[in-house]
């Protein structure tokens, strides 16, 4: 891994030797059969996509290969011999590197300390060689891009940067098999592009790359081979040329999905303005933004990561140092100093950073869901257990949360199902203004369709929805009104229900405004920064 050549032309490597083979692996957690007699072979130099619904067993399989879980039965074979893994260390020594779905970095330690954790190079007197640490860390960081300083504590990095550090960590190991569990879920388009470059560099040097993702298009684009899991069983494993998106979805979900996006019933043209933001400023993030949210309307916000969309939304909740500007609710100015003020006024938000915010991992599903609305579930100061459970069960059904029942500990759910619990928590609240920040990140296709339907339903019921998403089709299909943001400003606004608009033209326009490639008249005046 010395040179980053341009992505070599990829031809399917059909005859490459098998690097790692999994034979008849099963794993059970209590009543859940997470893996059921799974057999897969990973070949040298291939990209192998591992697909399946939330809770299908993808992460469990990866953890078994990584030595983080021990399988109940089955074997791992490498180079014609059985591998006996002794925990994570054994698998690392066997040339297996993993990027886990959950963030596995230590916030208080520096980037380079994290990168070399557990295999620090040693020099004289068996002391850690700080310069060698720095050199290797820098080398791997340069490969993943993102301008990350190796000497900075991880807690000072953005979520996307942390994700890149996780990938860099896998590169420090000089592994022969690299397993990536949803590495792109918090990356921007550019960063994903860069990651693709890293993956093709790895495969070019004969490494087998296993990729878990919920972006099926990305998966089929990148992969040479695909394995689909459903309820812990392999339903398909073969070359990418032998399958297509619809086929994969059928094997994942067990049924045809039909339409991903619900039909949009436009709101009345005179729908009342519920919330209006005027001159919103969050120093360093948002540079003076105006927008309105109307009853029964989905207002979409598109932009690159860091365009200030999340920060603008958080300012509505009273978060963000030094924020200024006016917020009007039903035409009256309101002061929001704290999220609890916002909650009282009926403004709710599903945060972007669900890996860290908003879940009690040691508590059951129903307690997590009811947490945000205990006030409405209590009588005489006591929580009504029945109502609490009923609420949770209803939400679990509508979001297809996969778990034995509502008393399951959230920490034991799959990553995607944990995200659904966060969503359920806020959806169950019933707000007048609901802010959704990347609501479908890490969520499988079936559940995505379900969430899209829910969003439109909420709007039909009169809720003003603010939808922030990096997935353009999502916004363009769901939103009635679209705001494009770039560099802390709204660079374009248009009515998505205008019948005169043509879909392709819209997409192109959005990209142009999101990259701020063209100075719009009003943005042009303030845009003297580069000359």
């Amino acid at each position: 891994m010395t040179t980053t050549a341009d992505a070599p032309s990829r031809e399917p490597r059909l005859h490459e030797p098998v690097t790692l083979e999994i034979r008849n692996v099963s794993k059970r957690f209590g009543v859940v059969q997470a893996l059921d007699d799974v057999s897969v072979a990973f070949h040298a130099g291939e990209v192998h996509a591992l697909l399946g619904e939330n809770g299908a067993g993808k992460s469990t399989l990866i953890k078994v290969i990584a030595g983080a879980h021990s399988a109940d039965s089955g074997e791992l074979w490498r180079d014609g011999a059985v591998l006996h893994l002794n925990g994570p260390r054994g698998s690392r020594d066997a040339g297996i590197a993993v990027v886990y779905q959950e963030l596995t970095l230590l916030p208080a330690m520096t980037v380079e300390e994290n990168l070399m954790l557990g295999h620090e190079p040693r020099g004289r007197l068996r002391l850690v060689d700080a310069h060698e640490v720095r050199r290797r860390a820098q080398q791997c960081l340069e490969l993943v891009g993102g301008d990350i300083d190796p000497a900075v504590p991880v807690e000072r990095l953005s979520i996307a940067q942390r994700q890149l550090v996780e990938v860099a960590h896998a590169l420090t190991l000089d592994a022969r098999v690299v397993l990536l569990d949803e590495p792109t879920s918090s990356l921007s388009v550019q960063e994903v592009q860069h990651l693709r470059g890293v993956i093709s560099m790895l495969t070019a040097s004969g490494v087998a790359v296993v990729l878990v993702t919920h972006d099926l298009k990305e998966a089929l684009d990148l992969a040479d081979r695909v394995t689909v899991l459903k309820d812990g069983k392999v339903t398909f494993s073969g070359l990418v040329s032998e399958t297509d998106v619809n086929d994969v979805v059928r094997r994942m979900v067990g049924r045809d999905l039909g339409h991903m996006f619900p039909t949009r019933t436009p709101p009345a043209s005179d729908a009342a303005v519920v919330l209006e933001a005027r001159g919103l400023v969050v120093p360093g993030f948002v540079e003076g933004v105006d927008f309105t949210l109307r009853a029964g309307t989905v207002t979409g916000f598109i932009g690159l990561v860091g365009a200030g969309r999340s920060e603008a939304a958080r300012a509505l909740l009273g978060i963000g140092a030094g924020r200024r500007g006016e917020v009007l609710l039903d035409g009256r100015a309101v002061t929001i100093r704290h999220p609890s003020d916002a909650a009282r006024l009926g403004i709710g938000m599903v945060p972007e950073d669900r890996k860290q915010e908003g879940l009690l991992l040691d508590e059951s599903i129903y307690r997590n869901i009811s947490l945000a609305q205990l006030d409405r579930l209590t009588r005489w100061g006591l929580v009504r257990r029945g109502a609490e459970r009923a609420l949770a069960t209803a939400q679990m059904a509508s979001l297809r949360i996969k778990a034995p029942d509502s008393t399951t500990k959230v920490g034991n759910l799959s990553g995607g199902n944990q995200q659904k619990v966060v969503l359920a928590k806020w959806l169950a609240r019933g707000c007048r203004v609901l802010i959704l920040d990347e609501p479908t990140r890490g969520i499988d296709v079936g559940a995505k369709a379900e969430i899209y339907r829910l969003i439109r339903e909420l709007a039909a019921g009169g809720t003003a929805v603010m939808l922030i998403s990096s997935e353009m089709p999502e916004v363009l299909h769901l939103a009635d009104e679209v705001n494009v943001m770039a560099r802390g400003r709204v660079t374009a606004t248009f009515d998505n229900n205008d019948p005169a608009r043509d879909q392709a033209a819209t997409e192109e326009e959005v990209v142009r405004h999101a990259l701020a490639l063209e100075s719009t008249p009003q943005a042009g005046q303030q845009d003297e920064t580069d000359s």
Partner: protein
Amino acid sequence: MAESGAAPRPAVRWDRWLGPLWLWSLLVVTVIIGFIASPHFLTTLNLSNVLQQAAPLVILVAGQTFALIVAGIDISVAATISMGTTLMMMVVNGDPSRIPLGLAAVLLAAVAVGVLNGAAITLLEVPAFIVTFGVASIVQGVVFLYTDQVNVGSPAPQMTEWGYRTWGPVPFLAVVALAFVILALVIQNRTRFGRWMYAVGGGEEVARLAGIPVKRVRVAAYVFCAVSAAVASLAISLRTGSGDPLGGSGFDWDSIAAVVIGGTALSGGRGGVAGSVLGALLLITMGNIMNLVGVSGFWQIVVQGAVVILAVTVSTVQTRRAQRLARTNIAVQKDKRRLKLRRQDR
């Protein structure tokens, strides 16, 4: 990515070697106050005396820091010190030829206590506070059994001689303490074990996934802590006439207070030995000044409590401010990156 080639940042984390800057300032301020408050404070004799007094606590906090870094705590250090001094005095009992035997006995007993602490915490999965609390009681009980609750034994003449020896203003004990602190700093900052302690304390599951032997790291941290208590007890026995079965009392809370003042979090994974040493020096210096001025011992306890709370508040505020600042920087970086992108597109 043109910048990444430019002058790389140094690979040494000075904060881990030297401790937080603001504690150094506070120590300087305290010394200035002492200078103003009492004419006897800034004298060679007094300062040399302060260093000698500080030595056992400084040695001990190095070990206590390790216990806190792995997200634990060691309450049993006071009992271990009592055990160390009485054992040394009983074994030596005035005979210089038995000093090596005494040293071996004290160190072995301490290692046993450390292993007991570490094993109970990792194998039984009982919180460190409870385990070390119980072990403290067991060890203290054993000490009472073999001493019959009276002072025992006596030092060899050479021991006392070393205990009071100074080179100019520099006492031998201060040199021992310094050497021990440097050893602890090297272990903390330059060995794999040191890094692994931070990992275990910062996130046990993350450490496990990185292939770190979590349990062994924990046990080793408690063993080092017990050994530092043993070395502290030896320092004490160089300066006393007999083994006091309660000689270590107070060292438990004093050491924890010093470590916490030094910026090591009770939740683990942050801080370090350097800060704890500064914390210990601060506590001892303040005590000395208050003694010189004639403040009663009860008030000294009150002041110590206030300083602990103040120090923890300052370090929490500092961490938070650093995090906020960093977030703003990220936004600026992103902006730069995007600008670059735009230029390329033109």
